[in-house]
């Protein structure tokens, strides 16, 4: 009797939900994943960390059937399985929630949850909408989600859409759920909600594999951390045995001295004054000043109007009544072209959708803003352009094979540097960066922060929007906080803490430090 129990206990201890054995995958010219062996238990959150290009996504794509491994074996609950397609992965109960969500915006929550497996009637010709909605509702209830099953996806926030993806994976009885940087587009509050949901799924015995660049979240959430570098698994350990430095060190293979290097800058003259800026329903009232040589952090929840400030200043959205002064002069900005002429640059938050020309060369992407200057009678002076781009590649440490390489084939960090290079060419007086380091690896991140410091030291005024509070705190000389379309608080570097910023962003602290402008 006791022997059997012991036997069962040992079995239970050793039963992995998922085992990846000696997985290798190569693409033409690149060994993306090299001999990786990794296991995960039921009811655990396994964080998968690594720089961009380390092979995390490839490994997870193999698991979810998007790629097939060259060699190696996958075991699910002790059984060897073959996963030749995403559909097979779904049947096996493996769901992957991608950074780019795969929902259909024009359909309802219920329709998306049941896409491709709708309950049918009338000999399989009609969809049983009632039953579908009832079942979708019960999944939402189980997860404690409060939006309607008949809501259109396009009406939901990014965070809610992610929740729908998770609901979908739950409704197909997934045993393993992979989340690829789920919080990169979420506000802190939304992230917290997602984490609660992940924890409750863990209680229910689901295995969650969680890819993230954010150390704070990894340490908050995960039971174990696996780190990949250059396609190999560098290490796996219980989270409580690790600290941020040790994980970062494993990721980069060296020690990073400062997470957010901060160069000392001298505050100069006024570069930009903004009074009662207004636009649409998201930006109601913002008044602030930027000085040359400083980095101002703009914090706030997603949807609080931060991005709208950037867009109005850059002429991408209409300015509905606010006053903008550039270097003391009242200006009207109707288009990005005009903004650029006034010396304003914008690095957009979504580099793929709004920043880059993914199918075009590194040269074109980095130098588009130079075309006016480096052309004669409309003809481009390619020699000068190439010379400049080569210099920028070197200065920013951009890893590109050559100038002709398609930007779409670069890693996230290098793509972002290409966008920044474009603005270096213009040398604006005011540079706005909207989430400049979202979803990029730690070394690129440090390089970008360094560069921002250098630019400020040369007299540029920098406005940085970020959802990452450690970044805001680490980089900014001054911090502005938005809430519901209004600028709510201003902190000096010395006064700012994560708590105070969050309080201002969520409305518990009103008008802190703003009396300066009255």
């Amino acid at each position, binding site marked *: 009797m006791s022997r059997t129990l012991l036997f069962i206990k040992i079995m239970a201890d050793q039963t992995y939900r998922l085992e990846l054995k000696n997985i290798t995958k190569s693409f*033409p*010219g*690149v*060994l993306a994943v090299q001999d990786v062996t990794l296991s995960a238990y039921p009811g655990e959150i396994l964080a998968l960390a690594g*720089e*961009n*290009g*380390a092979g995390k996504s490839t490994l997870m794509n193999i698991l979810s059937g998007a790629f097939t491994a060259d060699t190696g074996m996958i075991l699910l609950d002790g059984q060897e399985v073959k996963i030749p397609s995403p559909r097979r992965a779904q049947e096996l109960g493996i769901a992957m929630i991608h950074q780019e969500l795969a929902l259909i915006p024009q359909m309802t929550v219920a329709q998306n949850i049941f896409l491709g497996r709708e309950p049918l009637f009338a000999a399989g010709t009609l969809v049983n909408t009632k039953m579908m909605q009832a079942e979708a509702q019960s999944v939402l209830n189980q997860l404690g989600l409060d939006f309607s099953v008949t809501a259109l996806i396009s009406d939901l926030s990014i965070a809610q859409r992610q929740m729908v993806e998770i609901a979908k994976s739950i409704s197909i009885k997934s045993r393993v759920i992979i989340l690829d940087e789920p919080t990169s587009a979420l506000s802190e509050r939304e992230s917290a909600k997602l984490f609660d949901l992940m924890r409750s799924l863990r209680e229910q015995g689901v295995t969650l594999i969680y890819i993230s660049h954010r150390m704070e979240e990894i340490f908050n959430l995960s039971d174990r951390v696996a780190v990949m*570098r*250059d396609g190999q698994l560098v290490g796996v350990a219980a989270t409580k045995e690790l600290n941020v430095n040790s994980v970062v060190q494993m990721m*980069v*293979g*060296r020690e990073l001295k400062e997470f957010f290097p901060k160069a000392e800058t001298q505050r100069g003259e006024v570069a930009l004054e903004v009074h009662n800026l207004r636009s649409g329903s998201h930006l109601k009232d913002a008044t602030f000043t930027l000085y040359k040589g400083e980095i101002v952090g703009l914090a706030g929840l997603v949807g609080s109007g931060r991005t709208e400030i950037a867009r109005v200043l*850059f002429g*991408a959205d209409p300015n509905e009544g606010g006053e903008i002064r550039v270097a003391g002069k009242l200006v009207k900005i109707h*288009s*990005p*072209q005009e*903004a*650029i002429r006034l010396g304003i640059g*914008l690095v*957009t938050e979504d580099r793929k*959708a*709004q*920043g*880059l*020309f*993914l*199918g*075009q060369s590194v040269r*074109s992407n980095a130098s*588009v*803003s130079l*075309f*006016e200057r480096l*052309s004669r009678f*409309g*003809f*481009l002076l390619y020699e000068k352009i190439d010379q400049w781009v080569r210099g920028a590649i070197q200065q920013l*440490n951009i*890893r*590109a*094979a*050559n100038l002709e*390489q398609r930007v779409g084939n670069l*890693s996230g*960090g290098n793509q972002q540097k290409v966008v920044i290079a*474009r603005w270096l060419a213009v040398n604006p007086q005011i540079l706005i960066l909207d989430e400049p380091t979202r979803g990029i*690896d730690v*070394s690129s991140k440090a390089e970008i922060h360094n560069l921002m410091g250098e630019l400020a030291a040369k007299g540029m005024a920098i406005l940085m929007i970020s959802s990452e509070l450690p970044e805001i705190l680490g980089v900014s000389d001054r911090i502005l906080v938005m809430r519901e379309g209004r600028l709510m608080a201003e902190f000096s570097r010395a006064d700012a803490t994560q708590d105070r910023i969050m309080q201002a962003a969520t409305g518990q602290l009103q008008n802190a430090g703003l009396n300066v402008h009255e």
Partner: protein
Amino acid sequence: MTAPVEQLRSAPFTLNIFLKRFGLLLVYALLGLGLSLLSDRFLTGSNQINILRQATISGIVAIGMTLVILTAGIDLSVGSILALSAVITADLLKQGLPVFLAVLIALGIGALMGMVNGLMIARGKIPPFIATLGMLTVGRGLTLMYTQGKPFTGLPDTFRFLGTGSIGAIPMPIVIAAALFILVTVILTRTRFGEYIYLIGDNPVAARLAGINTNRMIVFVYMISGICSALAGLILIARLDSAQPVIGVGYEFSAIAAVVVGGTSFSGGEGTLFGTLLGTLLIETLSNGLNLLNVSQLWEQVIKGVVIALALLFYKAINRSSK
């Protein structure tokens, strides 16, 4: 900095890349080889000149269409623009207007109609397909109204030189098309405007945020397409000595086919004018060959359609496997 992040080797030179770069040339060569074996008339100089002359009309329209498709647009109105500018020009010529002025007016009409297309698309945010479909109908309607359904024939000889004359041994239409081809190639590959066309086609949002006046560029592109159509119309009526109200019907099809067979992507930002040249020649050579082999007109249509479908499948296959 020693962070080992990713492999920097550029992709090896594979069969895929070879096919992508030279596939069309290969198909063209094979077609030529096949036809010269099947028909001893195919490879004669006069027949080759004939193919080129046939290719000029659709080729010139396809040049404008290439720019439009590179911006991820489409111009369905090319045939109607061609027709309206052609009949008005023919009428003016018959009334004794100097050739030079008539030609300018024709190109002006093309530019104007193209500008309307461009403004509808850039400013009005109407999808190119719908905007130019509207212009197709309006243009054809105006043409029928203008002509009252009757053709204009008997154009002055100085004007007919555009279609029937030659410089040395080379027929005038070929000279014009070649010059236009070179000019637009230079614009596409050497100028700011050319770069902007690719960038706008790749990502219009990013293009605007990079400070490009995207609206103006799009209007220019449709104007160029209109001018190309009008020019093709002039050559056509000069050769036929007649401007029929139904002239140019269906030309959008052959132009789009040439561009797409030439490898330009419908989603914009990818393609070359050289590809369009090969696409045009391929389709014209195919027509010519089928003619020489006495294949019926009806089958010719079917075979052309199949060839275009195959070309698209071919590109799809290459693009998929090279990712």
